[in-house]
């Protein structure tokens, strides 16, 4: 199998590294060779964060090539746009319908871009927007939005649903297991 690439992006503190760890666990359980990259340090202080996961029979680079990523899972709309160049022309862009103003916007020096969805649709094979932050708040914990987004990704990948459920069970502390399984379900069953 040709190596496939997934890029997860968003804002520091949104649970991106947990999501990419979970994804890597599932792909390993599914029998693939997996490589994952992430960057720690200064960027995590409210800056943009990227983690990439690549899988296949034999994976070399942990980083995807520009224009060759199969899926982008964006935890924030502006970050979806910032990373769209990584996506292949046929690639699938899954986006949390959520705006988090970066500091230059919050302090009134710049404007948050309008019509992000329209721009993404011009550049991606498929775009799905999901109100993951709102759905997570409805489930009682805003932090579960990352697992809702993982559920949406799972619905677009051909990997046994049970493997995802097993991986969540192993990854999260017992008291959050039920919440996270519900969150996964909400993302998996989501229809725009």
């Amino acid at each position: 199998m040709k190596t496939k690439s997934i890029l997860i992006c968003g804002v520091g503190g949104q649970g991106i590294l947990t999501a990419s760890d979970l994804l890597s666990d599932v792909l390993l359980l599914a029998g693939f060779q997996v490589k994952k990259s992430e960057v720690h340090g200064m960027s995590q202080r409210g800056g943009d964060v990227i983690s990439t996961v690549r899988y296949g029979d034999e994976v070399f680079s942990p980083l995807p090539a520009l224009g060759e990523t199969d899926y982008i899972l964006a935890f924030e709309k502006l970050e979806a746009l910032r990373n769209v160049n990584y996506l292949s022309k046929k690639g699938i862009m899954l986006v949390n319908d959520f705006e988090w103003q970066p500091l230059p916007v919050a302090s009134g020096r710049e404007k948050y871009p309008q019509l992000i969805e329209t721009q993404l649709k011009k550049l991606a094979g498929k775009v799905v927007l999901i109100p993951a932050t709102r759905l997570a708040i409805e489930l009682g914990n805003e932090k579960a939005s990352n697992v809702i987004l993982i559920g949406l990704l799972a619905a677009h990948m051909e990997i046994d649903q049970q493997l995802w459920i097993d991986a969540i069970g192993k990854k999260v502390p017992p008291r959050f297991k039920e919440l996270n399984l519900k969150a996964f379900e909400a993302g998996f069953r989501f229809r725009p």
Partner: protein
Amino acid sequence: MAKELLSGNEAIARGAYEAGVTFASAYPGTPSTEILENVVRYKEVIHAQWGVNEKTAMEEALGASFTGARALVAMKHVGLNVAADPLFSASYIGATGALIIISADDPGMHSSQNEQDNRHYAIAAKMPLLEPADSQEAKDMVIEAVRISESFDTPVLIRMTTRTSHSRSAVELGERQVPPVPEYKSDFFKRNLLPGNARRRHVLVEERLKKLAAFSDGFKYNTVIKGKKRIGVVASGVSYQYGREAFPDAHFLKITMPYPFPVNLFRQFAASVDMIYILEENDPIIETFARLALMVPGEGPEDPRRGGAAPHPKIIGKDVFPLLGEMSQDVIQASLGLKDLTPRFDCETIPKRPPSLCAGCPHTALFYNLNLQKINSRGDIGCYTLGALPPLSAMDTCIDMGASITSLLGIEKALAKADKTIKQVAVIGDSTFFHSGITGLIDVIYNKGHSTVVILDNSITAMTGHQENPGSGKTLMGEDAPRIDIVKLVRDGLGLEHTYEVDGYDVKAIKELLKRETLRSEPSVIVVRRPCILLYRKAKWSPLRVDSGKCTSCKLCLRLGCPAISSDADGKALINETLCSGCGVCAQVCAPKAIAFVDEKGLHSSTITLETYLSGDRS
């Protein structure tokens, strides 16, 4: 054996465990920090500790090696500059128990002030260098390094990079070797580097290098991977992985031990291909050795002009591939004109998302005041370097660990010669002050400087992800430790009379102290105290709210750069109640008193004190 997905740093820690290491030390620094944080998982069998800086950490590891114990020391690339002094001595002394030095370099400068290539250090200090290409190799190289260190009586340098440290791939786990039993035996000629002894040791160092060069030729991790075309690629570290994607049909010489360079192995490889691409991040180190290997008359593949059989293959290296930043399959292909990297969407047209100080950060009020009072600040290395960015924009210089205080003194003295003075302060964090700020402060006192040093004491090493330090009252292994109080250290220890303590959330008190102390013609220290807000991740803070009827849209609160504060379409301030921790700093700067607590009796970060933090649960 079980396989696990491990980061390169976790794999180094696992390697230390399996190789029978019993002593490990480090000073935290991205991308190396998680090495010791994972070594401490094996604290039953490995003593793990944070040194106050990289130099002390390395010397402690060297001392452990004297006893026959296997020791590992880890640091980021610039940390090895601090530890360079013991590094060079350690090379002469050699290793009794293995001495493994990990340098995590940062090509592309994700979290660093430069992108120096620390492979140069192995060459300069005349010690073997290993460069793993993924997590499995990171683990394997620690085990190999222990063997090399003890067989050749030498410290071994392992060069990691951000991508090898922070990418995860599968690692096969193994059993732990039985570590040697430590015992101190004197060895004066080996370990006391008096010039007479050092001269003898240097002879041995040069002999050792020759033996290691022969070893490198046969080292099983320096390996050839056969391809289909007569194109050769020589690569090390993560560049090898990028190369495999960019040149799927080429022959590869994968070099895991770049120094001493496997000259004969390379020459054999060179004779089997028509051209060679050399892939390495930053400097042309392998390339220089490779070109030299083919230049020696009579030793390389024979030059046909002199009647030999094969011409030298053409070498393509840094003449084509960049010296700057990280390598990638895209960079390789673009350098060769095989891929156009012009983006379909121009990201320069959208707002950037720079990192910023957190909502409730105890550093914000200081930088806000420095900005308002137009005080020029010498910065240092830590979260607070973010005080340099707008809207705080209150840091003029940032050089290296500890340089805030020393550069401040230099500026002061140089200007004084011309009867000039500027209003300036040094700003340094608690961990950086312990690391190398104390010595600079002694310079200020001893040389009769009159500058003001601000120490931001948030009781933790925050930037790298909350490591304990001598001021936090805990060790890396989670034990209680004597807490070194910076105020007492400066006031009672160094005898600095004008030492003041102020709450990081007290805007007015900070303002007045800065005003008074920058005018004083004697040295002074202001310790700005309050624990890092991220120490209370689980706290459910009660926020502040803006009364839009009272808000005059003056935007003074926006000058704090707090990520929880923004403004609406009418320019009125808005507070994000999820992000707000209730520090109350914005309420203090609000002239029309439009900002107030939603619930006066709720849990606010402003009501937590250093004492409650130190005595209680840190969650």
